[in-house]
Structure formats: C-alpha cells, structure tokens
C-alpha cells in the first residue's frame, strides 16, 4: 500500500493549483454574484485538457486517470464550486457513460469534441416527479421507424444552457418499470428539444441549471446508449462515477473554507491575542482538518478502484456522503470563526456554505448514499 503521490501526480498538482489560483479564484465571487456561467474559464480549461482528463488519447482524452480527475475537481472547487461542477457533470455524467457504455461509433462521434471541450456535456435523469425515486420516469421514448420520439421534461440539469450533448433517460416501455428505461444521446440542435427556465439557486449559482423540454423530439435509433431497457443501469453506473466528482467537489469546498479559516484566525485578534491562540479554535480546527483528510482518502480510494476496474459503488457512496457532510460542517464552522465578517460577502466562506449544501443533494442525496452503503452491509 502506497499513499505517496507519484511524480506525475505531483506535477499535475503543481499545474492545477496554479491554474485554480490564477484563473479560477479571481472570478469566483463575481460569477456567484451575477449568476454567470464562466465561459472563458471553460475555454481555458479546454485548452489544457481539463475537460477530458480520465479518457484515452485515442478518443481525444488527455490520457490521465480518475485520481488526476479527482484532484482537478478538488483544486478547482477550493476556489469555485461552480467551475468544479461544470467539469464534473461534463466529465462524469456525459463523457463517461459514452466511453463506458457507448458503441465504437458513438465514442468516435462524440468523445473527441467533448474531451477537447469544444462541446460541453450534460445529463438528464431527474424529473419533477422522479428525484431520488429515479425509476418513476415520465419522459417517454416511442420507437417510430428509424427513430425514437421523446416527450417529457427533465429538471435541475447542470450545464443545460451551454451543453451540446445530453445523456437523457426515458421510458421505452412503461410496463417493465425500471427495465423499461433507456438512455439516449441527444444533440442540442435536435428539433423538438428546447431548454426551459434557468433555476435561481442558493449556491453554485454560475452553473446554468435548467429544464430540458422534449416535444415530439425525434432521435435517431443509433443514439440509443447501451441496451434498450438498460437505461436505469446506465444511469446508476454513471452516478457511481459522478459521486467521485461530487465528493471531490465537496472536499475542495471544505479545503477552501479551511484555508480561509486558518488565514483568518491567525490575523483576527480578540481579547488581545489572535483567535488561533484559543484552545477552542485549535481543537475545532484539528477535528475539521481530520475530517477533511479522511474525506480525501475516501475519495482517492474510490477513484483508485475505478481506475483499477475494481467495483467501487460503495466506495463512491461513502466518499460522497462523508465529503458532503464534512463540507457542510467545515463551511458552517468557517463562518462561525469569521464571526460577523463571515456572514458578509466580503469573505468567501458564506458562498462556500451555500455551495456546500448541494453536495448533500445532487447525484444521490446523503440518504441515498446511506441506502447504498447499508444495503451492501446488510445483504
């Protein structure tokens, strides 16, 4: 067992830390305030290969792995969770299912443009009446000649307004329940497909979360992803990978809030000394730091197993559960350490708390992660 970073990982961290500090951090407060999608940052990330880290070069990827991908999401999210989730949803929820479950033709057609960042990707599973109970899909896909005709809507879709490729789940046979769900690759300019209203959110406010609307939207049959009726499996497998991304995002948010807090408690003086000198501060920071490092190890283990093709569903659930709850705790306490200043937008910790909350909800709520972990335990 080896916990040391490889030299490749060290060099990668040097690059991604510098990139995050110089290119991501300066925009974080502004894109939150203005609810603006950071298109310029996405272009810069695309140029460096950050939009296709864990995929082979033969499909246009950077030839990296899930450990590097996880490190990238963490370092970016230390300063801006919006930018972190843009990369995570694109990579884990759109490119990964095409790579892992697509046909050779689908991979050749979509992966190079997605991996290069020329196209952005999104994923549509959630519906107004199908959240945690994802099996209750109401969007339908009816075969008609060489096409499927999609009708219905998807909500809360990350990257929706800027994506060109969407992985969409729809019922191809309602009588079969979850076995009647199929996955499709839908392109942006398909007639009958429109982007609905943009959500006004508590956090990750720059990420362009919208509704997807399908009205007699005709998809060529070759855009079926995986087997007919295999869509629920495609979605669950995709979310397993997505949880590595979101756990990394939560970890980054927690680390970012910790970095801000450490800096602040050394500077802030009360009762004649820096608040870092109070044992209450020291003990609380020690507990939080330990949880952050535990989150990091859980995330890395899940990413490692995915790279090694070892089953990692439970590892990803643990990582996301623990990292998300740690992010909430750390950001909440970070504000407390900052006192009144922390409650204002002069300091980034209030944004970090708002951003942290979604990590307990999307790509499987904390309750779903507990279901996954306990089901494995009690089987």
């Amino acid at each position, binding site marked *: 067992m080896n916990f040391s970073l490889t*030299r*490749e990982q060290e060099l990668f961290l*040097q*690059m991604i830390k510098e990139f995050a500090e110089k290119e991501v951090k300066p925009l974080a407060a502004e894109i939150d305030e203005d609810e603006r999608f950071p298109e310029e940052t996405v272009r810069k990330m695309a140029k*460096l290969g*950050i939009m296709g880290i864990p995929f082979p070069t033969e499909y246009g990827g950077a*030839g*990296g792995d899930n450990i590097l991908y996880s490190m990238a999401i963490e370092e970016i999210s230390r300063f801006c969770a919006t930018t972190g989730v843009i990369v995570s949803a694109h990579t884990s929820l759109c490119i990964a299912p095409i790579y892992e479950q697509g046909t050779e033709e689908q991979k050749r057609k979509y992966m190079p443009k997605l991996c290069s960042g020329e196209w952005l990707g999104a994923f549509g599973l959630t519906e107004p009446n199908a959240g945690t109970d994802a099996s209750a899909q109401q969007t339908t896909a009816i075969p008609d000649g060489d096409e499927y005709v999609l009708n219905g809507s998807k909500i809360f879709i990350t990257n929706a307004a800027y994506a060109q490729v969407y992985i969409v789940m729809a019922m191809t046979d309602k009588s079969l329940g979850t076995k009647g769900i199929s996955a499709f690759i839908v392109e942006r300019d398909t007639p009958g497909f429109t982007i609905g209203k943009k959500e006004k959110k508590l956090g990750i406010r720059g990420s362009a979360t919208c509704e997807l609307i399908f009205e007699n939207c005709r998809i060529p049959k070759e855009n079926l992803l995986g087997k007919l009726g295999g869509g629920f499996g495609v979605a669950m497998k995709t979310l397993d990978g997505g949880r590595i991304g979101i756990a990394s995002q939560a970890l980054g948010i927690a680390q970012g809030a910790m970095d801000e807090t450490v800096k602040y408690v050394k500077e802030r003086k009360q009762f004649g000394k820096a608040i870092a000198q109070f044992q209450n501060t020291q003990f609380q920071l020690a507990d939080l730091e330990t949880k952050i490092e535990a989150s990091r190890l859980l995330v890395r283990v899940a990413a490692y197993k995915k790279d090694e093709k070892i089953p990692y569903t439970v590892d990803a659930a643990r990582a996301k559960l623990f990292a998300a709850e740690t992010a909430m705790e750390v950001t909440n306490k970070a504000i407390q350490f900052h006192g009144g200043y922390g409650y204002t937008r002069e300091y980034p910790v209030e944004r970090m708390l708002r951003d942290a909350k979604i990590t307990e909800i999307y790509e499987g709520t904390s309750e779903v992660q507990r279901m996954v972990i306990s089901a494995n335990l009690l089987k």
Partner: protein
Amino acid sequence: MNVIVCIKQVPDTTEIKLNPETGTMIRDGVPSIMNPDDKAGLEIALELKDKYGANVTVITMGPAQADKILREALAMGADRAILLTDRKFAGADTLATSNALAGTLRTLDFDLIIAGRQAIDGDTAQVGPQIAEHLGLPQVTYVEDLEYIESKTFRIKKSTEDGYQIIEVDTPCLITVLSSANTPRYMSVGGIVNAFRKEIEIWGADKIDVDELKLGLKGSPTRVFKSFTKGAKAAGQIYDVDASKAVDIIIEKLKEKFII
C-alpha cells in the same frame, strides 16, 4: 528550426538561508522551481514551435532531482530533454557551468540557443553570454520579444536601461530572455501524462565535447570570499514634492551626512 533552451532549477524563495560556515545555500525544505527568466525563454521557444514547427530541446545541469523541471518543460511542450549530471560537474562556477553547457551544445544541432537572463539564486547573468563566447556565436541579451522575419534571421526587441533596441541577428545565435517577455503557458494535462512516457537523456562529462579540466571545481576560478544575509536597512523617507524642492532636500541630506 532547432531551438535549445538552457534552464536551471532554483529555490523558490526570496529568503534564501545560507550556511554561515560554508557560505552556501541551504536548499532543504525550499521548494524548487524552473528559473523564471528561463521559463520565459522556454515560452519563446514553444511559440516558435507553434508558429514554425521548431524542434525544442531543453538542457539543464544539476543533480538528479533537477529532472523535475525537465519534465515540466516536456509537459509544457518541449520535444527533448537532457540532464547533465556528473560528479565532475560539481562545484562549478559560471565559467565551468558555461563550459559544460557549451561542450554539450557542440554535440547538438541548433539554430537558436535560448537562456534566461539570470537565475534568481545567483543573479550573475553570466552563463548565457559565456556560452555564446565559447561557441563563437552572436548574442543578444535582455530580450523582450523576437520575431522570425526570414530564413535565418530574427528581429529582436532588446531591453536597455532607458528603452529598447531593435536588432536583427542571423542564426545560429544565442539570446538571453527576461521574465517580463511573456506569460509562460501552463502545462497541459496530456503534456504531463506524456512527459512521464518520454525519456530524459542523462549525460555525463564523458559525453560532451570539452576539456575536463574546465569542468566543476577544477574549472572554476571564482572563489566565494564570504556569503552573508543582507542586514535590514532603516526605512527610507518619501517626499512628495516638486523637483526643485527635491534637489534642496537631497543636497541638505548629503551635507548632513558629510557626503558633500
């Protein structure tokens, strides 16, 4: 076009601690980086690669750990990396260093050699010009910008104390570059992955074309008499006044200190 960039690994700090007994730097615990002027020089080389398909080779002389900056250079886009490492190189001053580098360059094909103006650990600005002298090449120092205008000729913007000179120089030649010349690109993810699939060539003294007496401590006429950390000076005074008043103040202060 073959471009060779000489780079150096330096400690990343302005607070270099010295060993008071030996007068040498204590490098332990100080992160090492690619020298900023050299990195700007590498960026110029990579821009020549982007525009004209130049082949870019990076060379550094140093201990085995110096391969880190060679990997970084490969990850930024360099094609080939050579690490000069040998006990015989140890203890080199600028002359012995430039002899080793010139001895290496003699064995390689090049149209342009790029060095940083100076390293942030030594600040001598001697190695680049010395290499050019050893090789009998034209050199342009303090380069801010460079344009390839026709086959074999570069038009160069050289920084001077009070402005710029525009100079045309034929290849083969050597330039030394200022860190202010550009913002070096980031390493790319694919570049990092590839950097570890490429081999870094390790060259010893036997592989280069130079008299061994000119290498390392033997080839170093420089003797460090004493190294010390600069003492703190008292804070200066700032007067926000017009020029004639400023002259009066300066004369008064110089008289106060019996300088005039």
